[in-house]
């Protein structure tokens, strides 16, 4: 629509490359795993007296944090 389209086209491809990374696919792991209820809908094994249902779902928080941190570090812009 307005004039700033021309010089942007050259930078577009380089900055797009920064955002598209195979590492991003890893993000699907912590999205899918916590939704597979048969994986954790059980009482045993217990951990610190927590039924599996509770401790494993709390542990998925660590899975989420680990994955987003890893993807962030691997796709971070190098300056």
């Amino acid at each position: 629509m307005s004039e700033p389209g021309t010089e942007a086209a050259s930078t577009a491809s380089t900055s797009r490359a920064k955002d598209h990374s195979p590492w991003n696919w890893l993000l699907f792991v912590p999205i899918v795993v916590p939704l597979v209820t048969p994986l954790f809908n059980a009482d045993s094994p217990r951990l610190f007296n927590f039924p599996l249902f509770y401790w494993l779902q709390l542990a998925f928080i660590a899975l989420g944090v680990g994955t987003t941190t890893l993807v962030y570090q691997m796709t971070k812009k190098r300056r």
Partner: protein
Amino acid sequence: MWRDHLTEIIIFTLLFLLVSAMGFVAARWRAPKDMEHLDEWGLGGRNFGGWITWFLVGGDLYTAYTFVAVPALLFGAGAAGFFAVPYTVIIYPMAFLVLVRLWSVSHRHGFVTPADFVRRRFDSPTLALLVAITGIVATMPYIALQLVGIEAVLKTMGVTGESPLARHLPIIVAFAILAAYTYQSGLRAPALIAFVKDSLIYIVILVAVLYLPYKLGGWGEIFAAADARFDASPSPGDGVLLNQNNQLQYITLALGSALALFLYPHSLTGVLAARNRDVIKRNMSALPAYSLLLGLIALLGYMAIAAEVTPLPGASEGTVDNNTVVPLLFDQQFPSWFAGVAFAAVGIGALVPAAIMSIAAANLFTRNIYKEYLRRDATPAQEASVSKVTSLVVKIGAVACIVFLDPQFSIDLQLIGGVIILQTLPAVALGLYTRWFHRGALIAGWVAGMGLGMWMLYQIPNPATGRAHFGGSAFPLEKFGLDTPKTIYVGLVAVAVNLLVAAIGTLVLRAGRVPDGVDGTEPDDYFADEDDPRSIPAPREETEAAGADTEPAPKL
């Protein structure tokens, strides 16, 4: 009687006054050059770093109502209420890439609301208006619910009155103070208060989850008590584990709620206030700390069972208010000074999201209704002042909801809110990735999803309260003619139909060569960062005017 709770009331009041003072001082915090600008008032100068964003967004997403209602769900129904944990786990990897794209395009074009983006991307004021109205309607009852959180605490402290007005007086006063400092300080007020709110909540919860199991005989005892209670109850749906029939509901509710969360205007307000893309990405790794907190808070519901807490009576005869179980648990198990701190944490916890939500709703009104339809040439200063006044109106509306209507009405509306905000997913979230959808088809999809969602919610009875309609978000699949007792989350079905209609509509409209407007964004916009030389400062009328006359603005 309130006299038995005097220590609690004094501590609660002192902490409340402290944060109120902070709210007013916040106007001078990170002093803006010129407060009379929507970027300053409504987005805190778009300059919040990692820590502030963490406290702000955390304080915004994990509301007082969440902290009261989630344990109440576990107290009442067991495992099904634990969906809040997977919900708040999957949200961050899902939002990780989407939000930075939204941040970038908003940064470059000076967008303040998601509807601003839709307006530019799809060149459709009508679609933007639908997104804005959806956002406002979904947010209003959410604000009212924050009051329900405060009320649960006040009830426990015995602060109740005979007449409805006397009963609600403390809330009216609290909200008047909140309205005053939000008016003055804008987004800076909740950002500063969030530090106090979240610190208090972290301390309170850590103490509670370490001390209460010790006092109640250990986690084994707590889960055993919950198990015994659910075994004894006649309801087939409860239990410390899920059963055959509620797993689908559990999965769809967690997924649907996660998809909805960052479509809420108030979540996006917190995100757009961040300084750069890195702040957002780092926060997607750091915010789950709140999810851990939420998981522990949820288990307070089982501790309340083990401690044999009996909830206070509800608003109508014969009902109980499960939202009072957590405040009662603290009242019974802790010395009154600590209970006072815990109650203050919930009370202040309600103020932070209420402030952000009212700012977000006000921004939507200002940018997408006032500026679009009422006053095209509004200056940034006029935008800021309209937003400030609107934020007052929104809060008065929320208080009126609680005082004049049954609180249950707000809870129902909030339930509907989650379903309707999901209907903006194709335009806002998918719109960040693709311009494939036709603007007309997105409107058709919105109408279809909204209609279906409303019909499904209307069909759901609530056996506990004996009401025939709007009794929850778990839709029995047998109403679709399927021979199964399973239920599914309404929002996810509605948004699936929405997408289907939008996709088919796009093909039809393309085939019919219906004009599709001009995309006002470029691929490069979605990667712009902080030091981007081409970002447009907020007054950016020149391109607006060019795009505006391609389509006549519809009448309101």
